[in-house]
């Protein structure tokens, strides 16, 4: 298996006027091509920092982060630009890369079409529902054809009903595009319903305390929730997270 992302003994310290915060220390893990990895951890433990390191937005204070290929970032809120149409939003990463060629553009638009956004391409984000907006945000992330998706609690701003649907949606899209994904969440059931592998982080400074491969045959997150293993995993992870 090809390795896309590797953290080796990574540490990260925030420096401010008031002092320093050790956000991450001795963190090691790797993500392989095609995997869906979820990372759960208590709030404030350094999850967002971890993703920034993975995306190369921060340089580690110690240790090493290796990454092969490009990252696509998706945040808690959709962060669509309100002054751009959905189409223009989706094409943003291509614009930034300066390669808004016809071929790329068509790829992005075909993604939008495939995943039910074609009616909304000329609409502004304010005209879409929360779930639709998050879907548009995902298509935007996919438009640049990233090798690994970094998802920072992308569903936590949605209400429960929408959240289940969008989760299912996103899982479906990511799996059918055969993307590698690293999902950060503090929702245990979300992690179990989506991931192939779950890593549990300690409280700050974050390091990996447990790692599990979930052997679900079922890719659909809603159906996973009905399986017997689901609650077993839930109890185990809950104990590890709070233990």
């Amino acid at each position: 298996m090809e390795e896309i992302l590797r953290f080796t003994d990574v540490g990260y310290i925030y420096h401010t006027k008031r002092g320093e915060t050790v956000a991450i220390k001795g963190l090691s893990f790797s993500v392989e091509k095609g995997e869906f990895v979820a990372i759960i951890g208590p709030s404030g433990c350094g999850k967002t920092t971890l993703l920034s390191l993975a995306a190369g937005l921060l340089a580690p204070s110690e240790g090493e982060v290796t990454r092969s290929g490009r990252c696509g970032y998706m945040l808690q809120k959709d962060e669509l630009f309100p002054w751009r149409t959905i189409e223009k939003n989706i094409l943003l990463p291509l614009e930034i890369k300066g390669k808004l060629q016809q071929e790329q553009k068509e790829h992005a638009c075909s993604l939008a079409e495939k995943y039910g956004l074609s009616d909304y391409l000329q609409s502004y984000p304010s005209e879409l529902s929360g779930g639709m907006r998050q879907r548009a945000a995902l298509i935007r992330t996919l438009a640049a054809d990233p090798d690994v998706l970094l998802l920072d609690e992308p569903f936590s701003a949605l209400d429960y009903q929408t959240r289940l649907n969008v989760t299912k949606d996103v899982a479906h899209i990511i799996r059918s595009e055969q993307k590698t994904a690293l999902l950060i969440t503090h929702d245990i059931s979300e992690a179990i319903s989506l991931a192939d592998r779950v890593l549990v982080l300690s409280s700050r400074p974050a390091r990996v305390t447990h790692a599990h491969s979930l052997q679900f045959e079922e890719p659909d997150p809603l159906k996973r929730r009905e399986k017997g293993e689901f609650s077993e995993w839930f109890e185990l992870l809950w104990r590890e997270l709070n233990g």
Partner: protein
Amino acid sequence: MKHKRYEISYSEEHLRFLKKRRLHVGVVWSLRVGILLLLIGFWELSTAVGWADAFLVSSPSRIVKTIAGLYQDGTLFYHIGTTLWETAAGFAISVVLGYGIALLLWWSETVRSVLEPYIVVLNALPKIALGPLIIIWFGTGSKAILFMTVIVGLIVAIMHMLTAFVSTDKNKLLLLRSMGANKWQILSKLVVPSSLASFISMLKVNVGMAWIGSIMGEYIVSRAGLGYLIVYGGQVFKLDLLMAATVILCFFAALMYFLVAMLEKLLVKNTEN
């Protein structure tokens, strides 16, 4: 935007609502005009029957006559033109320059922290204190007034825009950086468009500032313009002239504000926010 044009057939309730709204707007406008007419009428009446001394408070008819007089001796448009030009040019220069400087300050945090105390002091300084200095440097012509207008508006424009630029959404910045955007792209794709609303409110504030600057400038140095007419009218006790100039000033100040409001409509049209 996708305009979905339905064959519109509203409910009874909505029609009643629309009717009520129209009525409300009508009432507001008639009251507005009514108050104005009432004031003018009362003013005219009280000077006509001698409740108030027209020499001290002037009167609407005398104002109209004065304006007509200015028009006849050909100086009306000269004075209006002078002030308008100073105000508009000062406004444009302070807005453009202020925007540019704010961008520069946004770009470099070091420059920003170095210059911060200077900006604070310049902002606190009452610009009229610079009057004598400006006369010495720029003489008593339009140049001095233009300079006054620019400095009155400039600092306000800088502070207004800088605040908007540095408060650009952190998450959107993060997102752009994760896409590999350089600073120019961050500027053009995010910082400038997301500060559009602030830009417009800055324009509105600066229209006012430009009038303050130009009229203040004319009080201090000028030989022409509406501010000059006001000062001159006061000095020689020609209240009619003073009032006439003030009325004209009101009109043009409102007009300029209205133009900015039109610009706002134009700019905001395509950005459902």
